[in-house]
């Protein structure tokens, strides 16, 4: 059983009378432990695809199986539970809560998972250490650099031991050097902790860190190739 399997999923947006097909009949499988890049120009449907993979959106038609469960039949709160336990999100704009310390940001998924305070503190500290930000737990997002903020976001994605991390242009707001550091962190998490990483990017040199590249155009997959790490 594949970790992620989509069977002919499409997504249609209705804007008044016009039906906009953002995704047409996409089928693919992603196994546990893969490191996948999704590439494609703006409007190619890759973000829509990521939203569906992240259980933030449902396909109009087709099936999405996550660990064998058909996500399309789940209710809003059940989807929230899956996002909480199975998926860690990393966004281009970091999306940390302002005026809230790094540790408290990292704690959030545990909070919504009903984990008791003491265990929350331990796990959050562990995740913070894992991304190399030991001792910065008390800092607020506006006291941290972009790279550090993205590390906090990655720690938040890690903290619930989710098997999947979805990263939507995680280096889009970072300089080249910091981007490389963040990508190294992803590679480390992928190889050492066997976490499945799916990332959306424009840039070929970012995609180069992954071992499989899927290209989208006009809502369809146009290529899906494994890369041999050089």
């Amino acid at each position, binding site marked *: 059983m594949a970790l992620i399997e989509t069977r002919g999923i499409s997504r249609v947006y209705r804007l008044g009378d016009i039906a906009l097909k953002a995704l047409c009949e996409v089928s693919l499988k992603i196994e546990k432990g893969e490191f996948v890049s999704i590439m494609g120009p703006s409007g190619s449907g890759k973000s829509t695809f990521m*939203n569906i993979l*992240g259980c*933030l*959106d449902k396909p109009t038609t087709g099936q999405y199986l996550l660990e064998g469960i058909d996500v399309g039949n789940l209710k*809003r*709160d059940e989807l*929230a*539970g899956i*996002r*909480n*336990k199975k998926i860690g*999100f990393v*966004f281009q704009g970091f*999306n*940390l*809560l*302002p*005026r*809230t310390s790094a540790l408290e940001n990292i704690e*959030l*998924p545990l*909070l*919504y*998972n*009903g984990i008791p*305070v003491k265990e929350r503190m331990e796990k959050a500290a562990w995740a913070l250490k894992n991304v190399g930000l030991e001792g910065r737990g008390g800092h607020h997002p506006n006291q941290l650099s972009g790279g550090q903020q993205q590390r906090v976001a990655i720690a*938040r994605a890690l903290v*619930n031991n989710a098997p999947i991390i979805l990263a939507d242009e995680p280096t889009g707001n970072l300089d080249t050097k910091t981007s490389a550091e963040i990508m190294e962190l992803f590679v480390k998490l992928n190889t050492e902790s066997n976490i499945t990483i799916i990332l959306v990017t424009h840039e070929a040199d970012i995609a180069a860190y992954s071992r499989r590249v899927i290209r989208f155009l006009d809502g369809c997959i146009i290529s899906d190739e494994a890369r041999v790490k050089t």
Partner: protein
Amino acid sequence: MINIPSTIRIAFRALRVNKMRSALTMLGIIIGVGAVIAMLAVGTGASKQVEAQISSMGSNLLIVLPGATTAGGVRMGAGTQPTLTLADAEAIRNECPAVAEVGPVLNGIAQVVYGHQNWSTGVVGTTPGMLVVRDWDLSSGRPFTEQDVKNATKVCLLGQTVVENLFGDDDPAGKIIRIKNIPFTVLGVLERKGQSAIGQDQDDTIYIPVTTAQKKVFGTAFPGMIRIVMVKARSAGELAYAEKQINELLRQRHRIGPKQDADFSVRNLTQMMQAAEQSAKVMTLLLGAIASVSLIVGGIGIMNIMLVSVTERTREIGIRTAIGAKTWDIRLQFLIEALTLSLIGGLAGIIIGVSGSKVLSMLAGWPTIVSPLSILMSFSFSGIVGIFFGFYPAYKASLLNPIDALRYE
């Protein structure tokens, strides 16, 4: 799985971040709760005062007044035609089954002297029954008796105000005072009654036997004349019967035909006072209702701010939803924020309301009574306001689509 303590912490943090806004929002509730408590205190104080006056007057009271004279077509006021006699009073007591006791009154103003002090006061000629009618006990000494009335002895009972003015701190029992230059022995002192419903000092009075008043102090236009009769019915339920029985008896005694106007009238004092009490209660209700409006306005203020807050924090809600917050996690977060605003506002309002009513009673001289019930009521009402007006914004927040919310700038 909702984690209440953490949700409370999240709510508190959000309120702290916007201190000024939170304080201003609370102000609406503070004023509302404060107003409710203060207004109810004023109203309750007023009705308690009326109640006290009713009970000081005596309970289940009727008053029989003589009729009006007509001189050449000109009618004079009630009581101008002296028609009541002591015998009438006795007949009312003996022949009306619904009557418990009567107190005939022949009164006047007289100068009273003791030693080198003197004082002008109302002297009431009456019978021992009067003390029963008015529910009035003695604080010291003994009352005069039927025998004193029969013999027209020169004895008297003093009200507290008279004692204070004539005797100061001395004990008046057994002393001789002069009323209109006639020596009277003080038998006892009446208990303090305070003000009457119309603000009269009820303690500024002297009771003497009615016969003594008739024969020695005031004199009468005809034998046995008295001014009014106060009547105590056996119970509140029998007031109407007593009124009817007195009417029938006196018409018979005064030989008044069925079509003639009576030369007396019977009034129900208790009913009048109850009406006053009722209106005081209605006033309490009215004041409370008006104050409640401001509490509701405060609630709308909370809703307003919470709606702004939800819009402002759309992105935050998106983040929370994306990483696994369920519908009720979000709802509770905003509900608790609204509830915190309204409950803290409520607590502050209680303090303001209680101290406000104290200040009011000091400055305006109104008696105010803060009842624990009104505090409890307005506090729980402020909680209900918080939940009621907090629910819509919380509901709105919980329905946000996480994808759109995350994109919100």
